[in-house]
Protein backbone atom coordinates (compact mmCIF):
# COMPACT_ATOMS: atom_id res chain seq x y z
CA UNK A 1 0.00 0.00 0.00
CA UNK A 2 1.29 3.44 -0.89
CA UNK A 3 0.74 5.93 1.90
CA UNK A 4 -0.38 9.52 1.41
CA UNK A 5 -0.36 11.93 4.31
CA UNK A 6 -3.65 13.73 4.97
CA UNK A 7 -1.76 17.01 5.22
CA UNK A 8 -0.46 16.50 1.68
CA UNK A 9 -4.07 16.35 0.53
CA UNK A 10 -4.84 19.53 2.44
CA UNK A 11 -1.93 21.34 0.82
CA UNK A 12 -2.85 20.12 -2.67
CA UNK A 13 -6.49 21.21 -2.31
CA UNK A 14 -5.48 24.58 -0.91
CA UNK A 15 -3.05 25.30 -3.72
CA UNK A 16 -5.46 24.07 -6.40
CA UNK A 17 -8.31 26.23 -5.06
CA UNK A 18 -6.09 29.31 -5.16
CA UNK A 19 -4.60 28.54 -8.57
CA UNK A 20 -8.02 27.89 -10.12
CA UNK A 21 -9.33 31.25 -8.92
CA UNK A 22 -6.44 33.37 -10.19
CA UNK A 23 -5.40 31.79 -13.46
CA UNK A 24 -7.64 31.27 -16.48
CA UNK A 25 -6.80 27.99 -18.26
CA UNK A 26 -4.90 28.06 -21.55
CA UNK A 27 -7.82 26.35 -23.33
CA UNK A 28 -10.23 29.08 -22.23
CA UNK A 29 -7.84 31.89 -23.12
CA UNK A 30 -7.57 30.38 -26.58
CA UNK A 31 -11.37 30.25 -26.82
CA UNK A 32 -11.64 33.91 -25.74
CA UNK A 33 -9.08 34.95 -28.39
CA UNK A 34 -10.93 33.02 -31.05
CA UNK A 35 -14.18 34.58 -29.84
CA UNK A 36 -12.78 38.07 -30.13
CA UNK A 37 -11.93 37.34 -33.77
CA UNK A 38 -15.03 35.39 -34.74
CA UNK A 39 -17.88 37.10 -32.87
CA UNK A 40 -19.95 39.19 -35.30
CA UNK A 41 -21.53 41.47 -32.73
CA UNK A 42 -19.40 44.51 -31.77
CA UNK A 43 -20.75 44.38 -28.20
CA UNK A 44 -19.81 40.69 -28.06
CA UNK A 45 -16.28 41.34 -29.31
CA UNK A 46 -15.91 43.99 -26.62
CA UNK A 47 -16.92 41.41 -23.99
CA UNK A 48 -14.24 38.99 -25.20
CA UNK A 49 -11.71 41.84 -25.04
CA UNK A 50 -12.74 42.48 -21.44
CA UNK A 51 -12.48 38.81 -20.52
CA UNK A 52 -8.93 38.64 -21.87
CA UNK A 53 -8.03 41.84 -20.01
CA UNK A 54 -9.69 40.50 -16.87
CA UNK A 55 -7.65 37.28 -17.07
CA UNK A 56 -4.42 39.27 -17.43
CA UNK A 57 -5.20 41.53 -14.45
CA UNK A 58 -6.28 38.58 -12.30
CA UNK A 59 -3.04 36.74 -12.89
CA UNK A 60 -0.63 39.68 -12.81
CA UNK A 61 -2.16 41.57 -9.89
CA UNK A 62 -3.46 38.73 -7.76
CA UNK A 63 -7.18 39.56 -7.96
CA UNK A 64 -9.61 36.64 -8.34
CA UNK A 65 -10.98 36.20 -11.87
CA UNK A 66 -14.49 36.58 -10.45
CA UNK A 67 -15.68 37.77 -7.06
CA UNK A 68 -17.81 34.62 -6.91
CA UNK A 69 -14.95 32.30 -5.99
CA UNK A 70 -17.46 29.49 -6.00
CA UNK A 71 -18.55 26.54 -3.97
CA UNK A 72 -15.68 24.06 -4.20
CA UNK A 73 -16.61 20.81 -5.87
CA UNK A 74 -13.80 18.29 -5.47
CA UNK A 75 -13.62 15.26 -7.73
CA UNK A 76 -11.33 12.70 -6.14
CA UNK A 77 -10.18 9.52 -7.86
CA UNK A 78 -8.55 7.47 -5.16
CA UNK A 79 -6.36 4.56 -6.21
CA UNK A 80 -7.37 1.44 -4.30
CA UNK A 81 -3.71 0.78 -3.42
CA UNK A 82 -3.49 4.05 -1.51
CA UNK A 83 -3.76 4.31 2.25
CA UNK A 84 -4.41 7.74 3.71
CA UNK A 85 -2.53 8.30 6.96
CA UNK A 86 -2.36 11.06 9.55
CA UNK A 87 -5.97 12.14 9.32
CA UNK A 88 -9.20 11.45 7.51
CA UNK A 89 -9.72 12.15 3.84
CA UNK A 90 -12.86 14.27 4.05
CA UNK A 91 -11.49 16.57 6.74
CA UNK A 92 -8.19 16.89 4.86
CA UNK A 93 -10.08 18.17 1.80
CA UNK A 94 -12.24 20.55 3.83
CA UNK A 95 -9.18 21.92 5.59
CA UNK A 96 -7.57 22.55 2.19
CA UNK A 97 -10.61 24.55 1.10
CA UNK A 98 -10.65 26.43 4.42
CA UNK A 99 -6.97 27.37 4.12
CA UNK A 100 -7.14 28.15 0.41
CA UNK A 101 -10.12 30.49 0.75
CA UNK A 102 -8.64 32.15 3.83
CA UNK A 103 -5.02 32.59 2.76
CA UNK A 104 -5.94 33.13 -0.88
CA UNK A 105 -8.25 36.11 -0.22
CA UNK A 106 -11.12 34.26 -1.87
CA UNK A 107 -14.76 35.03 -1.17
CA UNK A 108 -16.58 32.78 1.26
CA UNK A 109 -19.83 32.04 -0.52
CA UNK A 110 -21.51 29.29 1.48
CA UNK A 111 -24.35 29.74 3.92
CA UNK A 112 -26.99 27.90 5.93
CA UNK A 113 -29.81 27.28 3.43
CA UNK A 114 -32.55 28.56 5.73
CA UNK A 115 -31.01 31.22 7.99
CA UNK A 116 -28.63 32.27 5.17
CA UNK A 117 -25.84 32.68 7.72
CA UNK A 118 -22.42 32.45 6.04
CA UNK A 119 -20.39 29.41 7.15
CA UNK A 120 -17.39 31.74 7.23
CA UNK A 121 -14.74 29.57 5.59
CA UNK A 122 -16.34 28.38 2.33
CA UNK A 123 -16.79 24.85 3.67
CA UNK A 124 -18.23 22.34 3.31
CA UNK A 125 -16.97 21.52 -0.17
CA UNK A 126 -18.94 18.95 -2.16
CA UNK A 127 -16.72 15.89 -2.58
CA UNK A 128 -17.24 13.21 -5.23
CA UNK A 129 -15.04 10.26 -4.34
CA UNK A 130 -14.44 7.37 -6.73
CA UNK A 131 -12.30 4.35 -6.01
CA UNK A 132 -10.15 3.49 -9.01
CA UNK A 133 -7.32 1.04 -9.74
CA UNK A 134 -3.76 2.17 -9.01
CA UNK A 135 -1.73 3.85 -6.31
CA UNK A 136 -2.36 7.51 -7.01
CA UNK A 137 -4.84 10.12 -5.88
CA UNK A 138 -6.19 12.52 -8.48
CA UNK A 139 -7.91 15.62 -7.13
CA UNK A 140 -9.76 18.06 -9.36
CA UNK A 141 -10.86 21.21 -7.58
CA UNK A 142 -13.74 23.01 -9.26
CA UNK A 143 -14.83 26.34 -7.78
CA UNK A 144 -18.39 26.57 -9.15
CA UNK A 145 -20.15 29.91 -9.37
CA UNK A 146 -23.73 30.27 -8.13
CA UNK A 147 -25.13 32.25 -11.05
CA UNK A 148 -24.56 29.54 -13.63
CA UNK A 149 -25.40 26.73 -11.21
CA UNK A 150 -28.82 28.34 -10.67
CA UNK A 151 -29.58 28.08 -14.40
CA UNK A 152 -28.87 24.31 -14.50
CA UNK A 153 -31.71 21.80 -14.92
CA UNK A 154 -32.53 18.11 -14.64
CA UNK A 155 -35.14 16.33 -16.78
CA UNK A 156 -36.54 12.81 -16.53
CA UNK A 157 -37.60 12.27 -20.15
CA UNK A 158 -39.70 9.49 -21.58
CA UNK A 159 -37.58 7.12 -23.68
CA UNK A 160 -39.91 7.97 -26.61
CA UNK A 161 -38.62 11.53 -26.57
CA UNK A 162 -35.18 10.29 -27.65
CA UNK A 163 -32.39 12.43 -29.03
CA UNK A 164 -34.83 15.09 -30.25
CA UNK A 165 -36.15 15.43 -26.71
CA UNK A 166 -32.65 15.73 -25.30
CA UNK A 167 -31.78 18.47 -27.81
CA UNK A 168 -34.97 20.34 -27.06
CA UNK A 169 -34.36 20.30 -23.30
CA UNK A 170 -30.72 21.37 -23.57
CA UNK A 171 -31.52 24.25 -25.94
CA UNK A 172 -34.53 25.35 -23.88
CA UNK A 173 -32.41 25.40 -20.71
CA UNK A 174 -29.90 27.71 -22.38
CA UNK A 175 -32.61 29.89 -23.94
CA UNK A 176 -34.38 30.37 -20.61
CA UNK A 177 -31.09 31.11 -18.85
CA UNK A 178 -30.44 33.89 -21.38
CA UNK A 179 -27.96 36.44 -20.00
CA UNK A 180 -28.14 35.18 -16.40
CA UNK A 181 -25.31 32.60 -16.27
CA UNK A 182 -22.65 34.94 -17.73
CA UNK A 183 -22.36 33.77 -21.32
CA UNK A 184 -20.27 32.77 -23.20
CA UNK A 185 -20.99 29.55 -21.33
CA UNK A 186 -19.89 25.95 -21.41
CA UNK A 187 -22.75 23.47 -21.35
CA UNK A 188 -22.21 20.20 -19.51
CA UNK A 189 -24.75 17.53 -20.38
CA UNK A 190 -25.21 14.25 -18.51
CA UNK A 191 -27.32 11.62 -20.22
CA UNK A 192 -28.43 8.37 -18.60
CA UNK A 193 -27.71 6.79 -15.26
CA UNK A 194 -30.22 7.80 -12.60
CA UNK A 195 -31.67 11.05 -11.29
CA UNK A 196 -28.51 11.95 -9.33
CA UNK A 197 -26.04 10.26 -11.65
CA UNK A 198 -27.12 12.37 -14.65
CA UNK A 199 -26.41 15.53 -12.68
CA UNK A 200 -23.02 14.18 -11.62
CA UNK A 201 -22.17 13.35 -15.24
CA UNK A 202 -23.22 16.83 -16.39
CA UNK A 203 -20.84 18.41 -13.89
CA UNK A 204 -18.02 15.99 -14.62
CA UNK A 205 -18.43 16.71 -18.34
CA UNK A 206 -17.34 20.30 -17.62
CA UNK A 207 -13.84 19.11 -16.71
CA UNK A 208 -12.90 18.39 -20.32
CA UNK A 209 -10.59 20.85 -22.03
CA UNK A 210 -12.57 23.38 -24.05
CA UNK A 211 -12.19 22.67 -27.75
CA UNK A 212 -11.38 18.97 -27.34
CA UNK A 213 -13.92 16.85 -29.23
CA UNK A 214 -15.70 14.00 -27.48
CA UNK A 215 -13.78 10.73 -28.02
CA UNK A 216 -17.09 9.01 -28.86
CA UNK A 217 -18.01 9.96 -32.47
CA UNK A 218 -21.76 9.67 -31.79
CA UNK A 219 -21.52 12.09 -28.85
CA UNK A 220 -19.10 14.34 -30.74
CA UNK A 221 -21.77 14.73 -33.44
CA UNK A 222 -24.44 15.45 -30.82
CA UNK A 223 -22.21 18.07 -29.22
CA UNK A 224 -21.64 19.82 -32.58
CA UNK A 225 -25.38 19.80 -33.29
CA UNK A 226 -26.22 21.17 -29.85
CA UNK A 227 -23.55 23.87 -30.07
CA UNK A 228 -24.99 25.05 -33.39
CA UNK A 229 -28.56 25.12 -32.08
CA UNK A 230 -27.47 26.99 -28.94
CA UNK A 231 -25.47 29.55 -30.88
CA UNK A 232 -28.42 30.07 -33.24
CA UNK A 233 -30.32 31.45 -30.23
CA UNK A 234 -28.46 34.74 -30.67
CA UNK A 235 -27.99 35.32 -26.92
CA UNK A 236 -24.30 36.10 -27.37
CA UNK A 237 -21.65 37.18 -24.88
CA UNK A 238 -23.33 38.53 -21.71
CA UNK A 239 -26.70 38.20 -23.45
CA UNK A 240 -26.20 41.40 -25.43
CA UNK A 241 -26.83 39.58 -28.71
CA UNK A 242 -24.28 37.68 -30.76
CA UNK A 243 -23.17 34.43 -32.32
CA UNK A 244 -21.21 32.95 -29.44
CA UNK A 245 -23.53 32.02 -26.60
CA UNK A 246 -21.63 28.83 -25.78
CA UNK A 247 -17.96 28.04 -26.28
CA UNK A 248 -18.56 24.30 -26.02
CA UNK A 249 -21.10 21.59 -25.30
CA UNK A 250 -19.62 18.63 -23.44
CA UNK A 251 -21.54 15.39 -22.98
CA UNK A 252 -21.02 12.35 -20.77
CA UNK A 253 -23.35 9.37 -21.09
CA UNK A 254 -23.98 6.01 -19.46
CA UNK A 255 -26.74 3.39 -19.70
CA UNK A 256 -30.01 4.02 -17.89
CA UNK A 257 -33.13 2.08 -16.86
CA UNK A 258 -35.37 0.88 -19.72
CA UNK A 259 -38.12 3.13 -18.34
CA UNK A 260 -35.97 6.26 -18.14
CA UNK A 261 -34.03 8.87 -20.02
CA UNK A 262 -32.46 11.21 -17.45
CA UNK A 263 -30.87 14.37 -18.88
CA UNK A 264 -29.03 16.93 -16.79
CA UNK A 265 -27.77 20.27 -18.04
CA UNK A 266 -25.09 21.89 -15.91
CA UNK A 267 -24.32 25.39 -17.08
CA UNK A 268 -20.86 26.78 -16.53
CA UNK A 269 -20.11 30.49 -16.84
CA UNK A 270 -17.08 31.65 -18.84
CA UNK A 271 -15.09 31.65 -15.58
CA UNK A 272 -14.73 27.89 -15.97
CA UNK A 273 -12.27 27.14 -13.21
CA UNK A 274 -10.80 23.75 -12.47
CA UNK A 275 -7.41 22.61 -11.34
CA UNK A 276 -6.17 19.04 -11.32
CA UNK A 277 -3.47 17.65 -9.02
CA UNK A 278 -2.12 14.12 -8.91
CA UNK A 279 -0.54 12.83 -5.70
Amino acid at each position, binding site marked *: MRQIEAQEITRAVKEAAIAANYKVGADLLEAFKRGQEEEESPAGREIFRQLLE*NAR*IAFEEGIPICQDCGLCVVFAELGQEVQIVGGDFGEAVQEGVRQGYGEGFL*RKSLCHPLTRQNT*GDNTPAVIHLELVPGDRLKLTVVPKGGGSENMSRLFMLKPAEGVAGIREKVVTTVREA*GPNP*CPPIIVGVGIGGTFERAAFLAKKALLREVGQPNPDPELAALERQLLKEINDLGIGP*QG*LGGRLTALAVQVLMQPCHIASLPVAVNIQCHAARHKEVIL
Partner: protein
Amino acid sequence: MTKPLKLKPPLTDQDVMQLRSGDQVLISGVIYTARDAAHRRLVEALAQGQKLPVDFQGQVLYYVGPSPARPGRVIGAAGPTTAYRMDSYTLDLLKLGLKAMIGKGKRDPGVIAALSRYKAVYLGATGGAGALISKCIKAAEVVAYPELGPEAIHRLEVEDLPTIVINDCYGGDLYETGVAQYRREQVKERG
Protein backbone atom coordinates in the same frame (compact mmCIF):
# COMPACT_ATOMS: atom_id res chain seq x y z
CA MET B 1 -20.80 52.52 -30.83
CA THR B 2 -21.36 56.07 -29.62
CA LYS B 3 -19.32 57.78 -26.96
CA PRO B 4 -20.21 56.70 -23.41
CA LEU B 5 -22.28 59.04 -21.25
CA LYS B 6 -20.88 60.00 -17.87
CA LEU B 7 -23.05 60.03 -14.77
CA LYS B 8 -22.41 60.98 -11.18
CA PRO B 9 -24.90 60.15 -8.40
CA PRO B 10 -27.13 61.38 -6.95
CA LEU B 11 -29.15 61.05 -10.16
CA THR B 12 -32.24 63.02 -11.11
CA ASP B 13 -35.26 62.06 -13.23
CA GLN B 14 -33.64 64.01 -16.07
CA ASP B 15 -30.42 61.99 -15.80
CA VAL B 16 -32.43 58.80 -16.15
CA MET B 17 -34.75 60.05 -18.89
CA GLN B 18 -31.86 60.79 -21.26
CA LEU B 19 -30.80 57.12 -21.19
CA ARG B 20 -31.84 54.54 -23.77
CA SER B 21 -31.22 50.81 -23.69
CA GLY B 22 -27.90 50.09 -25.37
CA ASP B 23 -26.26 53.34 -24.22
CA GLN B 24 -22.87 52.98 -22.60
CA VAL B 25 -22.62 54.76 -19.26
CA LEU B 26 -19.59 55.44 -17.09
CA ILE B 27 -20.43 55.94 -13.42
CA SER B 28 -18.21 58.01 -11.15
CA GLY B 29 -18.70 59.00 -7.52
CA VAL B 30 -20.35 57.21 -4.61
CA ILE B 31 -22.48 54.10 -5.11
CA TYR B 32 -23.75 51.46 -2.66
CA THR B 33 -23.67 47.67 -2.78
CA ALA B 34 -26.32 45.17 -1.76
CA ARG B 35 -27.15 41.62 -2.74
CA ASP B 36 -29.51 38.93 -1.49
CA ALA B 37 -29.13 39.04 2.30
CA ALA B 38 -28.79 42.84 2.51
CA HIS B 39 -31.95 43.30 0.43
CA ARG B 40 -33.83 41.02 2.77
CA ARG B 41 -32.61 43.03 5.77
CA LEU B 42 -33.50 46.36 4.15
CA VAL B 43 -37.00 45.31 3.24
CA GLU B 44 -37.60 43.73 6.66
CA ALA B 45 -36.43 46.96 8.32
CA LEU B 46 -38.82 48.96 6.13
CA ALA B 47 -41.72 46.68 7.04
CA GLN B 48 -40.98 47.29 10.71
CA GLY B 49 -40.87 51.06 10.16
CA GLN B 50 -37.16 51.31 10.98
CA LYS B 51 -34.81 53.89 9.50
CA LEU B 52 -32.59 52.43 6.78
CA PRO B 53 -28.79 52.64 7.04
CA VAL B 54 -28.62 54.30 3.60
CA ASP B 55 -30.75 57.06 2.06
CA PHE B 56 -31.51 55.69 -1.39
CA GLN B 57 -32.87 58.94 -2.86
CA GLY B 58 -31.11 59.45 -6.21
CA GLN B 59 -28.67 56.63 -5.51
CA VAL B 60 -27.10 53.86 -7.56
CA LEU B 61 -27.15 50.33 -6.14
CA TYR B 62 -24.58 47.81 -7.32
CA TYR B 63 -25.47 44.12 -6.93
CA VAL B 64 -22.10 42.77 -5.84
CA GLY B 65 -20.50 40.75 -3.09
CA PRO B 66 -16.80 41.54 -3.45
CA SER B 67 -14.00 39.14 -2.60
CA PRO B 68 -11.75 40.21 0.32
CA ALA B 69 -9.13 42.91 -0.24
CA ARG B 70 -5.49 41.97 0.15
CA PRO B 71 -3.60 44.10 2.68
CA GLY B 72 -3.03 47.55 1.22
CA ARG B 73 -5.67 47.09 -1.46
CA VAL B 74 -9.09 48.76 -1.68
CA ILE B 75 -11.13 45.69 -2.59
CA GLY B 76 -10.89 42.25 -4.20
CA ALA B 77 -12.73 41.17 -7.34
CA ALA B 78 -16.03 43.04 -7.69
CA GLY B 79 -18.17 42.10 -10.67
CA PRO B 80 -21.99 42.07 -10.76
CA THR B 81 -24.21 39.27 -9.49
CA THR B 82 -27.44 38.08 -11.16
CA ALA B 83 -30.17 40.67 -10.67
CA TYR B 84 -33.40 38.62 -10.77
CA ARG B 85 -32.86 37.46 -7.20
CA MET B 86 -33.35 41.06 -6.09
CA ASP B 87 -36.58 41.55 -8.10
CA SER B 88 -38.97 40.85 -5.23
CA TYR B 89 -37.30 43.56 -3.11
CA THR B 90 -36.76 46.17 -5.81
CA LEU B 91 -40.13 47.92 -5.81
CA ASP B 92 -39.70 48.98 -2.17
CA LEU B 93 -36.34 50.57 -2.95
CA LEU B 94 -37.60 52.33 -6.09
CA LYS B 95 -40.33 53.89 -3.94
CA LEU B 96 -37.55 55.38 -1.80
CA GLY B 97 -36.07 57.12 -4.83
CA LEU B 98 -33.45 54.59 -5.98
CA LYS B 99 -32.51 55.68 -9.51
CA ALA B 100 -30.23 53.00 -10.89
CA MET B 101 -29.26 49.41 -10.30
CA ILE B 102 -26.16 47.72 -11.69
CA GLY B 103 -26.19 43.96 -12.16
CA LYS B 104 -26.36 41.31 -14.84
CA GLY B 105 -29.16 39.19 -16.21
CA LYS B 106 -32.88 39.64 -16.81
CA ARG B 107 -35.33 41.55 -14.59
CA ASP B 108 -38.95 40.50 -14.17
CA PRO B 109 -41.76 42.37 -15.95
CA GLY B 110 -42.85 43.97 -12.67
CA VAL B 111 -39.46 45.61 -12.19
CA ILE B 112 -39.28 46.68 -15.84
CA ALA B 113 -42.70 48.35 -15.56
CA ALA B 114 -41.70 50.03 -12.30
CA LEU B 115 -38.66 51.60 -14.00
CA SER B 116 -41.08 53.70 -16.10
CA ARG B 117 -43.24 54.59 -13.13
CA TYR B 118 -40.37 55.67 -10.86
CA LYS B 119 -38.00 56.95 -13.58
CA ALA B 120 -35.19 54.54 -12.88
CA VAL B 121 -32.82 52.47 -14.95
CA TYR B 122 -31.19 49.03 -14.88
CA LEU B 123 -27.56 48.92 -15.98
CA GLY B 124 -25.52 45.87 -16.92
CA ALA B 125 -21.87 45.39 -15.99
CA THR B 126 -19.77 42.53 -17.37
CA GLY B 127 -20.39 39.44 -15.28
CA GLY B 128 -17.25 37.49 -14.47
CA ALA B 129 -14.91 40.43 -15.08
CA GLY B 130 -14.44 40.98 -11.37
CA ALA B 131 -10.70 41.73 -11.52
CA LEU B 132 -11.10 44.24 -14.36
CA ILE B 133 -14.04 46.07 -12.72
CA SER B 134 -12.21 46.27 -9.37
CA LYS B 135 -9.74 48.67 -11.00
CA CYS B 136 -12.52 51.31 -11.16
CA ILE B 137 -13.10 51.17 -7.39
CA LYS B 138 -11.04 53.77 -5.56
CA ALA B 139 -12.42 53.40 -2.03
CA ALA B 140 -14.64 50.94 -0.18
CA GLU B 141 -16.08 50.83 3.31
CA VAL B 142 -18.75 48.72 4.97
CA VAL B 143 -21.64 50.96 6.05
CA ALA B 144 -24.21 48.40 7.21
CA TYR B 145 -24.66 44.76 8.19
CA PRO B 146 -20.95 43.87 8.62
CA GLU B 147 -22.01 40.48 9.97
CA LEU B 148 -23.15 39.54 6.46
CA GLY B 149 -19.51 39.38 5.30
CA PRO B 150 -19.42 39.65 1.49
CA GLU B 151 -23.13 40.51 1.59
CA ALA B 152 -22.66 43.60 3.78
CA ILE B 153 -23.63 47.00 2.34
CA HIS B 154 -20.52 48.78 1.11
CA ARG B 155 -20.11 52.41 0.13
CA LEU B 156 -17.88 52.48 -2.94
CA GLU B 157 -16.16 55.38 -4.62
CA VAL B 158 -15.86 54.54 -8.28
CA GLU B 159 -14.29 56.15 -11.30
CA ASP B 160 -15.64 55.48 -14.78
CA LEU B 161 -17.28 52.17 -13.87
CA PRO B 162 -18.33 50.83 -17.29
CA THR B 163 -21.98 49.85 -17.69
CA ILE B 164 -24.52 49.51 -20.47
CA VAL B 165 -28.20 50.41 -20.22
CA ILE B 166 -30.21 47.17 -20.28
CA ASN B 167 -33.66 48.46 -19.25
CA ASP B 168 -34.43 52.16 -19.70
CA CYS B 169 -37.48 53.99 -18.35
CA TYR B 170 -39.33 53.68 -21.68
CA GLY B 171 -39.66 49.89 -21.72
CA GLY B 172 -36.52 49.37 -23.81
CA ASP B 173 -34.77 46.06 -23.11
CA LEU B 174 -31.34 45.42 -24.60
CA TYR B 175 -31.58 41.70 -23.84
CA GLU B 176 -34.60 41.53 -26.16
CA THR B 177 -33.40 43.81 -28.96
CA GLY B 178 -29.77 42.64 -28.92
CA VAL B 179 -30.69 38.98 -29.13
CA ALA B 180 -33.37 39.56 -31.82
CA GLN B 181 -30.62 40.91 -34.10
CA TYR B 182 -28.66 37.68 -33.99
CA ARG B 183 -31.32 34.99 -33.56
CA ARG B 184 -31.47 32.63 -36.56
CA GLU B 185 -34.79 32.09 -38.39
CA GLN B 186 -35.53 28.49 -37.40
CA VAL B 187 -35.33 29.43 -33.74
CA LYS B 188 -37.62 32.43 -34.26
CA GLU B 189 -40.38 30.21 -35.64
CA ARG B 190 -40.31 27.97 -32.61
CA GLY B 191 -40.60 31.11 -30.51
